[in-house]
């Protein structure tokens, strides 16, 4: 009596065939979903200790793959279209950060790449589709750019002036495969339009891995998160850039409209607006006021730039237009999530553009203060 042949024991019936296919499909789909759903390991670090650890990480080196998601539909004005895209759309970034002076942030596009390579006081902007590298010095004042949106940079800006009393702990969360303890920051100033900012940090290095900005209690208005993270300092070769012979290399004295206004506009904004002090770095035509979660920038615009922007603001949903009176200057005001934008003056007058994380009343106060308090200076 021998054993029965294998084929008679495991007879391949139609039912079994379909079972094999169904089981294989379930395994292939279920395993990765199951791995993703693994809960994060909790941490007992206190809020103030975590805040300290995050602050201490500002000199840390790291590299990673970052995705940002913005819901702020800003007016599509020419000079500000890049800023609008950064805060209103999804952005995919790959970054290598040796220190604050040596880094590279690549904005990945389906059709190419737009990179920023920072070396000391100089930044090279590479655009693949234009085959063009533009070198510029680092201005005192500039508009936001892709490198400002990586979680560590975003957190660094938000944490300015934040004290232990403004933070509380959040449950840990898995970010880029790391069980990251969370921190909630609530602005202490009543002027801030930000309801709160949540961040989760790498427990080993303290580098922020995910930042969420909330205007209210609903979904975040802006999110920046690492999808892949390496806490080791990247080698110098990763942040190096040498243009190829077929690429155009240009040198720009003026980076953007904020830099241009700051260098050449013959005006000086007041020292304080809406009770917020001007930062030390803004000692020319553009003023940056406040810190952390309560900040506003004031940029003087010439009439043709102001008119184009005013036209765009005018067609933005929720716009608030006021003609000038004895009580205050004319203005066009728009709030988009936590971001408020106001342009003073009327057509043909030029005006001051104020943008920042101030609530409506704070923004109006700041605009009135700028218009009343600025002064003209001789061109120097």
């Amino acid at each position, binding site marked *: 009596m021998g054993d029965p042949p294998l084929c008679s024991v495991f007879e391949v019936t139609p039912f079994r065939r*379909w079972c094999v296919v169904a089981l294989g499909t379930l395994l292939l789909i279920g395993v990765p979903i199951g791995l993703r759903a693994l809960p994060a390991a909790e941490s007992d670090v206190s809020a103030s200790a975590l805040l300290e650890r995050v602050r201490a990480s500002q000199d840390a080196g790291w590299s990673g*793959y970052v995705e940002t998601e913005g819901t702020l539909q800003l007016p599509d004005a020419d000079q500000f279209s890049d800023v609008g895209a950064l805060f209103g759309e999804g952005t995919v970034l*790959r970054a290598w950060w040796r220190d604050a002076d040596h880094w590279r942030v*690549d904005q*990945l596009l389906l*059709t190419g790449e737009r990179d920023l390579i920072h070396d000391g006081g100089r930044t090279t902007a590479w655009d*693949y*589709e234009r*085959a063009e590298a533009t070198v510029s010095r680092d201005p005192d004042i500039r508009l936001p750019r892709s490198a400002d949106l990586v979680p560590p940079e975003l957190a660094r800006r938000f944490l300015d002036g934040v004290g232990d009393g403004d933070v509380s702990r959040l449950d840990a969360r898995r970010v880029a495969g790391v069980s990251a303890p969370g921190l909630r920051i609530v602005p202490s100033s009543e002027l801030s339009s930000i309801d709160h900012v949540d961040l989760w940090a790498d427990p080993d290095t303290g580098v922020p891995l995910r930042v969420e900005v909330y205007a209210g209690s609903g979904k975040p208005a802006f999110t920046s998160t690492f999808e892949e993270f390496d806490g080791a300092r990247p080698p110098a070769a990763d942040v190096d850039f040498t243009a*190829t012979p077929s690429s155009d290399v240009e040198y720009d004295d003026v980076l953007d409209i904020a830099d241009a206004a700051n260098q050449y506009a013959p005006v000086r904004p007041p020292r304080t607006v809406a009770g917020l002090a001007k930062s030390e770095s803004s000692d020319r035509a553009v003023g940056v006021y406040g810190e952390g979660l309560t900040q506003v920038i004031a940029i003087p615009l010439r009439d043709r730039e102001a008119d184009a922007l005013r036209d765009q603001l005018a067609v933005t949903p929720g716009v608030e237009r006021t003609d000038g009176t004895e009580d205050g200057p004319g203005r066009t005001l728009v709030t988009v999530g936590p971001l408020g934008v106001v342009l003073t003056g009327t057509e043909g007058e030029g005006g001051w553009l104020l943008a920042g994380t101030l609530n409506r009343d704070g923004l109006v106060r700041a605009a009135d203060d700028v218009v009343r308090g600025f002064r003209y200076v001789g061109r120097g």
Partner: protein
Amino acid sequence: MTGALIRVELSKLVRSRRTWVTIALIDALPTLVALLLAWTDLGPRPGTGPAFLSAVLTDGTLFPLAALAIVLPLFLPIAVAITAGEAIAGEAQQGTLRYLLVRPVGRTRLLVAKLVAVMAFVVLTVLVVAVTAYVLGVLLLGNETVTATGPATSVSGSSMSTAELLGRTGLALGYAMLCMLCVAAIALFFSTVADSPLGAALGTLAILVASTLLITLDAANAVQPYLPTRYWLAFVDLFRDPILWRDVVRGVVLQGVYVVVFLGAGWANFTTKDVTD
């Protein structure tokens, strides 16, 4: 036995006039684009055209990649869906499937032979498109000095040696072929289910169109990583510096899962099906 069957299927493929007409039609689009670019010297505005199309005005050796980006989203999958959709359903519609299975070839072997033939079609098409594009690129496009002397410029702005460019181009072509294997697996499954080749091709295209549509929809973010066309254009990442493997690897794994699942379902269905045609 399987080898003989594969030889028969390959022979049918190569001798079919339709095969070459289809390949010529697919090749016609990038050829037309090359001629228009050479004539007008006008590239797409940044962010608007297929990947690499703006770069070929500087370096013609990149045109095979631009050609791939042109045919991969639509032309190539349609051709593969039609070819693979006909594999079983076409035989059934012509009434030849029953006679094929009367011979002791086994249904699994027949399915494998059909798949190999479809993949041979994919490989042939991709290579014809790439070679034509390379010749056109070198002859008509780009700055002659840059094209002749190199080095090429990577998407990240660094230099790429000729060997690197060739290696990465080979990887990109292989990746595109894998993506088309996924289309072939889906179409082959539908070919075992549908009564007509048209039904099988349309079923496949419905999945691909739905996938492409959902990729553009923010509300579908949660399902996007699992859509079959999600990572098709990730071959661009092979030309970044350093190579960004993230989406390429995900693409390979995802295409692999679709191939395994749909080939498995096609096999289970075909080997248990009552064949009367």
